């Protein structure tokens, strides 16, 4: 009887906590603040750009946060998967250009080209992830210092190899015809590929949530984040789960890289490290280990970056670090991190 009453009490408390409601209202409201000094049309353009950027950062951050949450591994080689994905996509687009599937291609061929690039990045990233986890990361479980040193070293080597395989210079990425240019929606210029980025980002979020919430694998991974020993004694090889999650995270980062390269229409070898900084900020904002948290964090970072870059360009990255600091002051575990 007593326990029943106590449970009801807890449910009521988490249901309508006025403080929580206030925090949510404030955190949504703050995003309309730039309307005070940016005109609505520009604001709309920046918002679409920010959402697209956020979705792409999310692709990298989702894997990073899962790897940290489940394996307690800080993977600084994540940027290397990203940049390799970008270059694989770039080369494939060049090859597809020769058969007319890129510039001057129809809608079906353009979509086909992007799909092929994403698939190639997925495979290359996934394989790199498995190899790296089995060869190196496995040796560093339990020691953050080792993880930082080893994954950073691996990242440097992978980027140097990339420079040898491709080139150390900037390259221009050709965008499939159907995704070039923009639509005009009531005077708001909506770049086509930004919409694609938003769609892909939402699809990946939905996919991850589906696997995490609706499948046995998802239950195992979530349980592993909470208590590895119990998962192991229930008959699951947690090491195999680790490898799988690392592989999936690497594949997602590589897909993020390909998307980013088409988004920016250019690539360079340092783009992985640059993106990793954003992804790390996002993971910290969202709470280490939380996929939903990093999704919210990525949207925040994408939007803030674009609003600030329009108003005061040099402060764009600084603003994101500010957001991170403020959120950590309010909630040291990030938006949705474990207490």
């Amino acid at each position, binding site marked *: 009887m*007593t*326990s029943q009453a*106590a*449970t009801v009490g*807890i*449910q009521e408390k988490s249901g309508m906590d006025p403080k929580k409601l206030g925090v949510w209202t404030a955190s949504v409201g703050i995003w309309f603040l730039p309307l005070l000094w940016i005109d609505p049309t520009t604001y709309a353009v920046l918002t679409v750009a920010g959402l697209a950027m956020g979705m792409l950062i999310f692709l990298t951050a989702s894997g990073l946060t899962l790897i940290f949450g489940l394996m307690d591994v800080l993977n600084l080689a994540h940027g290397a998967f990203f940049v390799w994905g970008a270059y694989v996509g770039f080369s494939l687009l060049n090859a597809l250009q020769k058969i007319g599937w890129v510039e001057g291609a129809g809608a079906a061929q353009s979509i086909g080209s992007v799909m092929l690039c994403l698939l190639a990045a997925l495979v290359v990233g996934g394989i790199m992830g498995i190899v790296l986890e089995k060869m190196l990361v496995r040796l560093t479980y339990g020691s953050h210092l080792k993880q930082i040193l080893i994954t950073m070293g691996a990242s440097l080597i992978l980027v140097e190899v990339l420079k040898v395989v491709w080139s150390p210079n900037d390259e221009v990425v050709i965008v499939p015809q159907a995704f070039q240019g923009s639509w005009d929606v009531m005077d708001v210029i909506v770049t086509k590929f930004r919409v694609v980025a938003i769609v892909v980002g939402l699809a990946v979020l939905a996919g991850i949530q589906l696997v995490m919430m609706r499948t*046995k694998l998802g*239950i*195992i991974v*979530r*349980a592993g*984040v*909470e*208590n590895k*020993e*119990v*998962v*192991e*004694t*229930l*008959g*699951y*090889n*947690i090491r195999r789960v680790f490898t799988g999650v690392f592989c999936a995270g690497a594949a997602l980062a590589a897909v993020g890289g390909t998307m980013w390269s088409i988004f920016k229409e250019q690539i360079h070898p340092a783009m992985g490290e640059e993106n990793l900084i954003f992804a790390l900020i996002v993971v910290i904002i969202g709470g280490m280990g939380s996929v939903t948290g990093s999704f919210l964090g990525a949207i925040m970072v994408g939007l803030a970056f674009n609003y600030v870059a329009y108003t005061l360009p040099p402060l764009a990255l600084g603003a994101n670090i500010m957001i991170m600091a403020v959120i950590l002051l309010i909630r040291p575990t990030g938006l949705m991190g474990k207490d």
Partner: protein
Amino acid sequence: MAEAILSLERVHTYIEQHHILQGVDLSFMPGQATVLLGRNGAGKSTTLRTIMGLTPASSGSITLKSQAIQAMKPYEVAKLGVGFVPEDQAVLYTLSVEENFRLAMLTENESAWARMETIFELFPDMKKFWRSKAGVLSGGQKQMLAIARAFVNDHDLLLIDEPSKGLAPIVVDHLIESINHIKNHTTVILVEQNFYMASHVGVAYFILDDGRTVHQGLMADLVHDEGLKQKYLGIA
């Protein structure tokens, strides 16, 4: 006499540099419930954790159904049909009660869900809180979940560490009943301080002290052996 389903011979275990188990010899007959007794810190929990491979034995042998398991990983031991209910509540707070059970089901099939029906009868609260997060359950309910979870698989062997801790007397009676119910086809190894429960479940017993097996026998005899109870269990 039938062959033991599980036996430990001269098992030693270190936790870091501490020599915790210093020669544990045990053997368990199939279809029998055996209780491990001993004062606090005697090494009962460590013995179960060593069988599971969580704190691996440094020497000695552990044989499960004629197979050496002392070098196996916990998941391998589990897959051989060993269920483990640890001492601290091992329910997953962020998962719902349903997900806790699904995680425990090694194969999610008809017979697993049929066993679920029996579990609901024994522990109606599990049905009531089926969709709630396990984190909102009371201490006793969490304990029930941890035990009930071990019943969903048709295990040959169940290791249960102090299940009565924190449970009301009536629930302890339920528990005794349910363990006696599965005893027919599952061998149970029970660590239990509650002598009432220990004596109502166990047929055989072992007493551990300072990481060693010091006594063994039949529960029916121990019940009347005041000297032994006083010496090792501190029961007057």
